[in-house]
């Protein structure tokens, strides 16, 4: 479960206050709103990438408000994938498990498993340069899922994809997330995308957040 209570976050001169919402365990939440309304700031605060001014963030029953990003057990997929430019796809998938001290065998098994699940076996030895938008997002998703997080946060992961790739990715993300029982929070400004993928929808406007679909 992702639970946010009376959250206040500052990003430079911009501050967002009194945000509360909840995504139950195993459900897919989508946060919508216009560009610049603070959606990404809220997501970054949940991931531990923005300092919280006040309020509380609870993930799977654990108060993580003051924990550092790596201790929260969240997989993060940024807007443009933000792949590590110098690493092959294999190294990207192995990065999290390696940092967290998994054994070589465990890492190899996990990389093969993810590559098959996401259909990226053929690009494992390639570097990000030259990958298509869809391939980049599959790799970014795989990298986030590699350490088996219970929660995943996706920041407009499909905004740069063409229509055909977009539909395929919506199906892939939803099926992977549901299959592993992961709780997801997904940011988008597309109502259509939200309707396709979500269990719960929230809309952020003028600093106020309302639930519009349950």
């Amino acid at each position: 479960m992702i639970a946010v209570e009376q959250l206040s976050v500052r990003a430079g001169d911009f501050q967002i206050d009194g945000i509360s919402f909840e995504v139950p365990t195993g459900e897919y939440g989508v946060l919508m709103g216009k560009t610049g309304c603070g959606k990404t700031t809220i997501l970054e605060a949940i991931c531990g990438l923005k300092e919280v001014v006040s309020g509380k963030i609870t993930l799977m029953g654990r108060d993580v408000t003051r924990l550092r990003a790596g201790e929260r057990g969240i997989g993060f997929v940024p807007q443009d994938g933000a792949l590590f430019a110098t690493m092959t796809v294999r190294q990207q998938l192995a990065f999290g498990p390696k940092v967290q001290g998994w054994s070589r065998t465990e890492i190899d098994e996990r990389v093969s498993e993810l590559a098959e699940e996401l259909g990226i076996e053929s690009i494992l030895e390639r570097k990000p340069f030259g990958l298509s938008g869809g391939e980049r997002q599959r790799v970014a998703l795989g990298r986030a899922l590699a350490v088996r997080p219970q929660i995943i946060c996706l920041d407009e992961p499909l905004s740069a994809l063409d229509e055909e790739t977009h539909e395929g990715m919506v199906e892939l993300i939803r099926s992977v997330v549901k299959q592993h029982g992961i709780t997801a929070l997904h940011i988008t400004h597309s109502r259509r995308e939200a309707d396709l993928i979500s269990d719960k929808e929230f809309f952020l406007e003028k600093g106020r957040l309302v639930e519009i679909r349950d």
Partner: protein
Amino acid sequence: MIGIAVMYLLLIGGMLMADVFYSVSNVGWEEFKAILADEYIQASVKLTLFTCTVTALLSVVVALPIGYLLSRYDFRGKALIDAVLDIPIVLPPLVVGLSLLILFNKMPPWEWIGIDGPSFEEMFGKIFGPFMPEGVDAGITYKVPAVILAQFTVAAAFAVRTMRNTFDQISPRAEQVALTLGCNRAQAFFRVVVPEAWRGISTAGTLAWTRAMGEFGPILVFAGTIRGRTEVLSSSVFLEISIGNLEGAVIVSLMMVTIAVVVLIAVRMWDQESRKKFVL
């Protein structure tokens, strides 16, 4: 616009070609060999290679954190720090040398507020004196450390600018992903940012190295141009001119051009290879 660009390129090419043709028409093979065999010139080459390498390494070590902080964080006084970092670039070189001489030899910071104490020069001597070989004084001014400090003061400022531009061009998103995957800030920096900044790091190092080789004003005032002791190639050119040996000065200048080109090519080749082989 193309005309202006061509004129400037002709000026650069013309400068270098003038040195080459002057040497060919005025310097005989024997004179050339004599300059290369000169023990002071050989010592000058060795000292140049040593001090420039130390300066380049120090500059990169300093430029990495400063460039990163300026690029990634906003804090009070950032604009002031940014401006201070440009001072070594805009100050007249002789003033840089004079300021270093006063700071290290004449008036350390505690004396500014009326507290008596040893100068940096004296402290350096006390710390490193016991470790020096017999007959060699430990000190800064008019010694090798002064050459390195004089080069470093200016070269590091250029390295910082290069590193800041490099980090500005690298999105912080990849580091943020690394943080969510379990890295602490240092791990994210060394595992993700440094490999992506590798090209910028090698450029900063090369720039610092070549800038250090060309430094003269601060070295003249702070380290002197003592033959065989603090003489680097830029001082050799000055010393050769001051004794009326223009031919010798031109040959040393050509040596500097050659060394700079070789360093540039070597770093570029090493950079390409290391980028190919780089595995975390």
